[in-house]
């Protein structure tokens, strides 16, 4: 198969086109701008629509409109831009519409910085907009995985009628790696709810997130949560690396997991039984895999490019049965393999 050298942002864009995305609405922001630029170049040739909206808020509401007609629609941004989109994402969830949102994270809060960060974990997994809802959150750790996860995100979004997010970071978005585009067989999901013209053959469809009766809204939300339970059972993913006999297990996702893997290898070379669990979905969180991967471990070390936003999810997965330590860098600073190695030693890996 043909190997290409691609930047993460470009790979996400190309993968979306190949997954049948027909509408991309964006607004430039570092470090994801190449994604929009790529779409501007390629989308029209691929028979779709690229539109640079007047703002992030406009872009997400265009996604809502396009998704309502049943086409695959996507938007992308970086942290501050995602905050702006949060209202629209809540409306999309409340309207049971599928779409894909890409967040190439940078440092925050506020305008923050333009260097890589993972400080939007809470936002993505707990609170991206108001109301009772979840979105699927994928956390790729390589350019190839960005491609694979994007297709999956579209498929599951369609299947469960909900928004899905690719939570990347500036490092992944900007870096170049060899990739192969698999033959993408996008799931074709029937969308009888789409507002694409009834042609007098059926009742007209309504896409809406407003409910006049509280019990009607309650029922809709409860039904949604039944679907969420199904997703939790079937679709959580994680990579377990050298965990079978590991005394110390590092838990890290995204680009940080690549750095952590180097540290784990270094620890193994030094005779320390270290392992790595890499959550690939952040919602649903891979609770079972965390338990499975830490069976032999006495200590767990969470490493993130944030002040420790994933730590609670790891503790809850383990029901606080083991000490969960944390090491993090924030504000656009990337942890070094040696720093994580030192942390492993500090926890007691030298014994």
């Amino acid at each position: 198969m043909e190997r290409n050298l691609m930047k993460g942002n470009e790979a996400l864009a190309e993968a979306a086109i190949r997954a049948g995305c027909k509408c991309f609405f964006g607004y430039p922001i570092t470090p994801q701008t190449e994604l929009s630029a790529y779409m501007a170049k390629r989308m029209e040739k691929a028979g779709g629509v690229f539109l640079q909206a007047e703002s992030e808020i406009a872009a997400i509401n265009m996604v809502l409109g396009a998704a309502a007609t049943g086409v695959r629609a996507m938007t992308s941004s970086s942290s501050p831009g995602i905050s702006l989109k949060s209202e629209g994402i809540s409306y999309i969830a409340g309207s049971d519409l599928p779409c894909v949102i890409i967040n190439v994270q940078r440092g925050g809060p506020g305008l923050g910085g333009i260097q890589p960060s993972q400080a939007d974990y809470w936002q993505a997994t707990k609170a991206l907009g108001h109301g009772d809802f979840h979105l699927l959150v994928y956390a790729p750790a390589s350019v190839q995985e960005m491609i694979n996860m994007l297709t999956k995100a579209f498929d599951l979004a369609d299947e469960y009628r909900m928004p899905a997010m690719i939570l990347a970071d500036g490092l992944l978005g900007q870096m170049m790696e060899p990739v192969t585009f698999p033959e993408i067989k996008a799931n074709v999901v029937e969308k009888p709810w789409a507002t694409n013209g009834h042609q007098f053959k059926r009742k007209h469809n309504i896409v809406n997130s407003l409910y006049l009766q509280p019990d009607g809204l309650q029922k809709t939300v409860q039904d949604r949560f039944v679907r969420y339970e199904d997703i939790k059972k079937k679709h959580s993913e994680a990579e377990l690396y050298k965990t079978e006999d590991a005394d110390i297990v590092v838990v890290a996702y995204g680009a940080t997991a690549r750095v952590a893997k180097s540290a784990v290898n270094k620890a193994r070379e030094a005779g320390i039984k270290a392992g790595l669990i890499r959550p690939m979905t952040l919602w649903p969180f891979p609770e079972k895999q965390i338990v499975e991967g830490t069976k032999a471990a006495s200590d767990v070390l969470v490493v993130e490019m944030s002040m420790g936003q994933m730590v609670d999810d790891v503790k809850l997965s383990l029901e606080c049965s083991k000490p969960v330590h944390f090491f993090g860098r924030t504000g656009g600073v990337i942890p070094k393999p040696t720093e994580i190695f030192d942390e492993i030693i500090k926890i007691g890996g030298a014994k």
Partner: protein
Amino acid sequence: MARSSFKKKSGGSVKRITVVTGHYGVGKTNVSVNLAIKLAGSSKKVTVVDLDIVNPYFRTADFDDLFESRNIELIKPMYANSNLDIPAINFDLERIIREDRYIVIDVGGDDAGAIALGRYAEALSEYQSDLEMYYVINCFRYLTRTADEALALMYEIENASRMKHTGIINNSNLGNETTAYDIKASISFAKEIAEKASLPIIFHTYSKNIDMDNGEGFEEMDIFVKPLWEV
């Protein structure tokens, strides 16, 4: 030694000013850093100019320490590697090129990056006989995989920069997956571009860790631009 090809193809001796352009991601920065280090190694006074106002990540300005250790002067935009994401150049390239030093100018990717170079086209034209402008190609980079795609972009860069290339550097690679086979397979791609553009191929690059019988026309490269976890 492969280095001889660099000298020969560029007319007996290395010219004083080298401008490096190309599609973003082909490896311009890695080529620029290598050129600068080789020049400094032959006891030349060298200045590297980071003229990339497009990409805030992976740029020559990342190599401060390396340059310092080789006594290479680095000129970079004031806000390079900071959080201020504005395309501003606050140094005086017109003055810098007048100095009695060898200069490697690492231009930003694509025609967008070359716009900054166009600002200095007139000043640089005074040194035409002492200047090379190399178009770096990589046949594994998406959107420049065919000779015609790579050529189309080359002309877009020339339009944006208002300057003409004088040679092609074939930097075809697949990152750390690159094999000798990949590099050999890229030669016909480079030749097609060179022929259609009527430009010489300055050299084909290969990284130190690849087992190449480095014949005429090949240039060994150190890999400086790499992800943090491989450092």
